[in-house]
């Protein structure tokens, strides 16, 4: 079968206006690495959810809630008082794979295989598995025998968890996790969501997801009834994001305030 001639090519039988319109068109674009990383993180969360748990239209919201609750991501702050210890991330299976995928995407190499399946896996930069003993709850203290002298002893400083090594060094993955956490909290506790957003701003003042962070901050302020601040930040973001997809989202948000 003969291939038809394209409208915008010479010899295409298109009316002049049609040719003009198609000449101005932009081809569909590929996903950027950032979009792919974000999408991979989201799909990892979807995969971690049992199918039966997803009830139709509410599925997305539930998945977002599972982001923080379901054990995929747990933030563990190393509890050393007076020391400047960076925030550690302890990440369960799906996100761990995402971190590795993102690293692979950055280096152009293949994504590593799932642990335990291939039998060979580099542990460099990755979290070592917590031993079963470490994950068991500590035994309850025994009652002192009657008549024995009890001394008040200061409780020992909790030692950092065995697995408290940074799992994901990739900053973009970490940014995604922080902002997804904020998004998850948005509906139930906008003040906590705002806290997460501010934490992101402190850690990544010029982060790659700064625009998304600002958008979440506006949403949180709006939910907290701080409309003035929300509007001011919304208008500032609108100025910065002219011609980007955020423009429409921010305009929609500003319209909600009216």
């Amino acid at each position: 079968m003969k291939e038809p001639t394209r409208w915008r090519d010479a010899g295409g039988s298109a009316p002049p206006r049609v040719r003009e319109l198609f000449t101005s068109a932009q081809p569909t674009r590929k996903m950027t690495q950032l979009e792919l990383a974000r999408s991979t993180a989201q799909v990892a969360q979807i995969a971690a959810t049992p199918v039966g748990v997803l009830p139709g239209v509410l599925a997305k919201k539930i998945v977002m809630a599972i982001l923080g609750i379901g054990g995929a991501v747990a933030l563990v702050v190393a509890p050393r008082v007076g020391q400047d210890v960076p925030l550690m991330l302890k990440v369960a299976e799906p996100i761990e794979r995402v971190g590795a995928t993102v690293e692979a995407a950055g280096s152009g190499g293949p994504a590593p295989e799932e642990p335990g399946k291939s039998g060979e896996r580099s542990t460099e930069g990755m979290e070592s598995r917590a031993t079963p003993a470490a994950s068991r709850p500590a035994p309850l203290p025994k009652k002192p025998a009657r008549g024995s002298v009890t001394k008040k002893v200061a409780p020992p400083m909790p030692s950092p968890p065995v697995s408290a090594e940074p799992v994901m060094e990739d900053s973009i993955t970490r940014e995604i996790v922080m902002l997804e956490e904020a998004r998850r909290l948005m509906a139930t506790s906008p003040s906590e969501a705002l806290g997460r957003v501010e934490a992101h701003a402190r850690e990544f003042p010029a982060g790659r997801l700064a625009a998304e962070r600002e958008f979440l901050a506006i949403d949180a302020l709006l939910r907290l009834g701080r409309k003035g601040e929300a509007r001011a930040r919304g208008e500032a973001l609108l100025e910065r994001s002219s011609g980007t997809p955020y423009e429409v989202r921010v305009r929609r948000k500003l319209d909600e305030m009216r």
Partner: protein
Amino acid sequence: MDGVFRMIRLFPWAARGSPPSAVERPLDVVAVHAEYADFVFRSLQRLGVRPPDLDDLRQEVFLVVHKRLHTFDTGSPMQAWLFGICKNIVARHRQRAYVRRETTAIPVPETSSEGVLPSPEESLATKQARAELEELLDELDLDKRAVLVMFEIDELGCEEIAEELGVPVGTVHSRLHKARKAFEKALVRRQARLSRGGRR
């Protein structure tokens, strides 16, 4: 024979005789995503999803994949199945009120193809032409729209389109022909409305 190759493509670990790796594990949403994320992303654009909604709809697609993967017939092409899901989700998305009334600013590149900054007039003309094109494409049904965009804008060949959509090449030719007719009619209608002094 074609079915055998397809099975090998879907289940490479079976042909190799070793257990599947995480990436190769069949019927897993993560594996499907790894292979077809970009295809879904592009399909949604071809079906007319605007940039601000792409992220949400992409997630919806993979939620459906996760829920319905057990119903996927491994003898049929995965892309056709995914495209069907994209189409259903976009059809629902089109029904939503805010999508119907919203006109989206489509970003114009800062430089022209010659690497020179376009004048404000050129920028405006390009922006208007793209908005008009989107409006006209939105009048087509989703199958025709996708074929027209793939052929005229993404410049794919009919065979490539047929493979991506999982339909015979003859169907692509037929859809393209009908899509062109429908597009021309939509343009005539639009111009008639404009000449009568309507907004659109």
